[in-house]
C-alpha cells in the first residue's frame, strides 16, 4: 500500500474510533451478549443455542449498523468541513481518497468485530465454564460477518460518494434488508418467466447477497460447513466489494466538487 493510501486509511480509522456512536454501539453489543445467559435460563436446555444466536446476530447486525452510520459521513463530512479540498490540494488522487476511506472503515469494523468476538467468547466461557472444539467452529460465522462488513462498507461508500448522509443511510439499509432476502429473490427469478425472469435475475446478482454469508443457524447447530463455501464466499465478498468500490471511484472521479 502506498504511503498516501495508508495515511488516509489510518486517519479514517482514528476518526472512527473517536466517534461516540461507535462506543455506544459496542457497549450495547457487550451488554446484549452479557445478558444472553439470562435468556438461556428462561429457555430450559437452550442456553448455549440462544447465547450463540444472540451473540453472532449482534456481531453481524451491529457491525453492519456501525458500517452504515460511519460510512455515510465518510465523503460528505469531508466536504462539509472543507477538509476534502485540503486533502485533494496535496498530491492525493481522488481514487486514493476513496480507497483509503474504504480500508480505514474496514479496519475499524474488523477491530470492532474482534472486540465483540472477545466479549462473545467471554460470555460463552462464563455460561459453559469451558470452550470446546464446537465453539471454534463459530469463528466461521464471525469471519463471514467480517465479509459482510466488507460489502456493506463498499455499498455505503458508493452512496456516500454522490448522496447526502441521510439518503445514503436509507439506501444502504434498504440494500442490507433486500440482501438478506437475496436467496428468495434468486428462487423467485428461477421460477419466473420472460422479462420478469431477466429483471429478477439481474436484481438478484446486483444486490449484495447477505443471505449467502449468514451461517449463524448452521454453526449454532454445529452443522458442517465445507471449505469450498468459505473459499467461494470469500471470493464473492472480495469481488463484489471491489466492483462497488470501483463504482464509487468512477462517480467520485467525475464529481464536480466546486
Amino acid at each position, binding site marked *: 500500500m502506498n504511503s498516501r493510501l495508508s495515511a488516509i486509511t489510518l486517519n479514517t480509522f482514528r476518526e472512527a474510533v473517536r466517534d461516540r456512536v461507535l462506543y455506544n454501539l459496542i457497549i450495547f453489543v457487550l451488554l446484549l451478549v452479557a445478558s444472553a445467559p439470562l435468556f438461556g435460563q428462561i429457555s430450559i436446555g437452550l442456553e448455549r443455542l440462544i447465547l450463540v444466536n444472540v451473540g453472532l446476530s449482534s456481531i453481524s447486525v451491529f457491525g453492519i449498523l456501525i458500517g452504515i452510520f460511519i460510512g455515510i459521513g465518510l465523503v460528505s463530512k469531508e466536504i462539509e468541513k472543507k477538509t476534502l479540498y485540503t486533502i485533494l490540494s496535496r498530491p492525493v*488522487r*481522488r*481514487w486514493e481518497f476513496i480507497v483509503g476511506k474504504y480500508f480505514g472503515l474496514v479496519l475499524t469494523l474488523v477491530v470492532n468485530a474482534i472486540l465483540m468476538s472477545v466479549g462473545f467468547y467471554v460470555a460463552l466461557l462464563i455460561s459453559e465454564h469451558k470452550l470446546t472444539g464446537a465453539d471454534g467452529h463459530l469463528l466461521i460465522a464471525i469471519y463471514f460477518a467480517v465479509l459482510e462488513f466488507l460489502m456493506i462498507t463498499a455499498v455505503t461508500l458508493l452512496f456516500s460518494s454522490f448522496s447526502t448522509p441521510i439518503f445514503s443511510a436509507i439506501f444502504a439499509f434498504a440494500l442490507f434488508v433486500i440482501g438478506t*432476502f437475496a*436467496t*428468495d429473490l*434468486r*428462487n*423467485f427469478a*428461477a*421460477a419466473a418467466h420472460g422479462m420478469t425472469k431477466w429483471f429478477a435475475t439481474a436484481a438478484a*446478482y446486483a444486490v449484495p*447477497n447477505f*443471505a*449467502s454469508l449468514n451461517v449463524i*443457524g*448452521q454453526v*449454532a*447447530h454445529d452443522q458442517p460447513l*465445507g471449505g*469450498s*463455501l468459505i473459499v*467461494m*464466499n470469500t*471470493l*464473492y465478498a472480495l*469481488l*463484489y466489494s*471491489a*466492483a462497488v468500490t*470501483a*463504482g464509487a*471511484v*468512477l462517480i467520485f*472521479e*467525475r464529481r464536480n466538487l466546486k
Partner: protein
Amino acid sequence: MRSKKTVLIVAAGALAVCFAGSIFALDGATAARGGESTLEEVLYLPSGKALQRLSLGYSSLLADIYWTRAVQYFGSRVQRSTRYELLDPLLEITTDLDPHLIVAYQDGSIFLSQQPTWGAGEPDKAVALLEKGIRNNPEYWRLYFTLGFVHYVDRHDYKAAEQAFRKGSEVPGALPWMRVMAARMAEKGADLGTAVALWQGVYNNTNDKELKQTATMHLDSLRADADMNELDRRIQLYRQKTGALPARWSDLIRAGLLPGIPLDPTGVPYKLEANGQVNIQDPSKFKFLGEFRNK
C-alpha cells in the same frame, strides 16, 4: 487529465471484471451451500408463533415470503422426488404468520395430500391444515370443498367427505352444488362422475400452475377412463350383433355404433387391440389412468 482518464478506464474495467467474477463466485457459494439451505433453516425456528413476535408486526409480509418458499419448494420437487419433509413445517409457519392466507390452506393441503411424486402423500396433515384454516376462516366455504375433496380422493373416507360438503353447504354464500356433492357422497361413494366434478372444482379454485396441471392430468385420465368404458360397451354390442370382434374402428362406424374415430382427451385416436380391448396410444400422457376403468 490523462491520469484521470486512466483512472476512469481502470475503475470501469475493475467494476466489470469484479462484478462478473462475483456472479461466478456467488453461484459457486450457492452450489457449495446446497440448494435448500435457506429452506432448511426453517427447521431451526419451526414455531410460526415465535416468528410472528420477531416480525415486529410485519407478519403478513413474512407469511407471503414463507408461502413463496413453500410453493418454490413444492415446484422444485413435484414429479421428481418422493420426499417433501419441509412442506408441512413451511405451511404451518405460513399459516401461523397469517391465519387468513386462504391460498396456503387451499393449495397447500392439495400439495400435502397428493401421492408422491405428485405431492407429500400426507392426507392426514392436509386435513389438519384445512381444519386449522376453517377454524381461522369459518366464513370461507371453499375450504370445506377442499376438505371434502381430500377425504374423498386421498383418504377414501366418504362419510367424512359428506360431512365436509354438508357443513360447507350451510355456510352463507356457499354454492348450491355443495349440497349436491354431499348427497352424491352419501349415495354413491366412489364414482367417476363425482371424481370429475371434484377435480374440476380444484382446477377452478386454484391459480397455481402446477396444481392446475395436476388437475388437468387427473381430468384427462378420468375422461379417458369414461371413454374407454363406453367403447368397451359398444364393442360388446357389436359382438352380440355380428358374433365377431371388430378389427378396426371403421367396423363400429359402419355398424352405426360410433359416429367417427374415437379420440382421447389429447386428440389422439384410441387403440383397438386384436382381442377387442381398448387402449390409449401414449400412456405416459395419462398418469392416473385406470382408477375408474371397468374390469
